């Protein structure tokens, strides 16, 4: 099944108990499509219940990117978390597993090799 990984790349970062997810369009022409679909609400719902706090979204059209800031997403923070991956380095790939609706895929410019 098609997933967000077909359309975009993503990188996770951490600061305290806050995770950040930068999502970048493979093809910049897909930015309006991605920005219209990948809302903060969709991201929060997909990653629940791992994210306890609010999810903020920043739009970066000049970079064809979105930045998501997820509070309370790291089990108390890198230095307190008991998780195998306390930094949430792998979190970007949980997000990239989000199923991509057929109508988004058919309108996308990017075609994964």
């Amino acid at each position, binding site marked *: 099944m098609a997933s967000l*990984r077909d359309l975009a*790349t*993503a*990188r996770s*970062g*951490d*600061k*305290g*108990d*806050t995770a*950040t997810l*930068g999502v*970048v369009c*493979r093809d910049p022409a897909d930015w309006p499509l991605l920005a219209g679909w990948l809302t903060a609400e969709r991201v929060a*719902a*997909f*990653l*629940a*219940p*791992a*994210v306890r706090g609010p999810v903020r979204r*920043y739009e*970066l059209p*000049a*970079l*064809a*990117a979105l*930045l998501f*800031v997820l509070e309370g997403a790291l*089990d108390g*923070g*890198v*230095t*307190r978390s*008991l*998780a*195998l*991956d306390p930094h949430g380095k*792998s*979190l970007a*790939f*949980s*997000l990239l*597993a*989000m199923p991509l609706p057929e109508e988004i895929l058919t309108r996308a410019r990017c075609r*994964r*090799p």
Partner: protein
Amino acid sequence: MVAATFRIGCGAGFSADRIDAAVTLIERARPQAVVFECLAERTVAKAVQARLADPEAGFDPWFEERMRAVLPPALAARSTLITNMGAANPAAAGRLARRLAAEAGAPDLPIAVVEGDEVTEIVRRLDPPFLDRLGRPSVLGEAIVSAHAYLGAAPIVDALRRGARVVITGRVADPALFLAPLIAHFDWAADDWERVGRGILIGHLLECAGQLTGGYFADPGVKDVADLAVLGLPFADVEPDGNATLGKPEGTGGRLDRLTCTEQLLYELHDPGAYQQPDATADFRSVRFTELGPDRVRVEGGRGRPPPATLKVVVGYRDGAVVEGGISYAGEGAVARARLALAILRERIDRRAIPVLDLRTDVIGVDSLLRGAAVAPDPDVRDVRARLAARVADRASARAIGHEIEALWLNGPAGGGGASWSAREGLAVASVLIPRDLVRPTVSFVPPA
């Protein structure tokens, strides 16, 4: 005359970074300044504990190996070296650097040490509220190990203007390590917010070293990166107005393009319009990347405005003990046997009334990393590991839980292998803000050998 551009490279993005890649960067790209950023959030608190045990310890554990390797090429290329590897003891690191410089044939090399980042007593006195957990430092009492403020570029600029060729610091804001040589070289005013903002942007892009040039990026078949084994570290050719062209050494692996740069620009950013640093609040919303050719990317459009009147401080504190361990299962029913093992462990910990502050179990291969809807219902995975981690008050409780994990060999589900566990002291961090005028950085030069 000011040269048209100033080349600054990043030789390390964390303590365990590759040393041979830094040597290649210096030999092939010959940057005028090379920065080694090696301090994670809790590193300084760990280093303070090491210094308490040994007054000549408390700096980066790879300092000697890294400096011994990079000093000869840096002397040949006339590169200035700037690093926060001083951690909790920049003075001792400076003394060791003096010996290593003498070994490299430069006994008179000007080596400067920046101190004044430790603010433990100020934090105890002011007792400001934590930003990222409940309460204030006073609630932690004697558990506090140390508090260190993120210094800005000023003391490093001072050291460079006084002729330092090696600058060793403790806690300094990571981008400030890169901003400082740009201010010193181009003679930017400290309140030239646009240029300072662009310097912070360059520091932010470079500070994680190989993460700009194809590290933390490859996804085979989808995002391929050539020759990752010989990943090249990045440099920036900075222009007097603060715009720059990014590159990596000839003949190294990795990739540098719009995607690697954009992923790194957004890395650990909390607000692209307000990246708060001690020297300025940078604004990355108008940043543009232009691919000029293979592994050459132009970056433009950073901005800045005055910084807040406070500095961020990281408070390190002892946080009980952490025990972690597991046992592995294979074949049909492996996931069910792993889940049974974890249920048995929980029951034995309860029955023995071992006091636990926090406990987490996972099945590695099923749900140890994936989050939310990305986790599949128990799949037919045939190679898994049951994992338990717990925070407890003391070493004795950690040992008791570790013993129960090991006991699964003979007293758990069928076919369990590779049982192991380890315990460590918990060391956590939390942040506060303090007025910047209370922090007084100092610069001193290490006497010649």
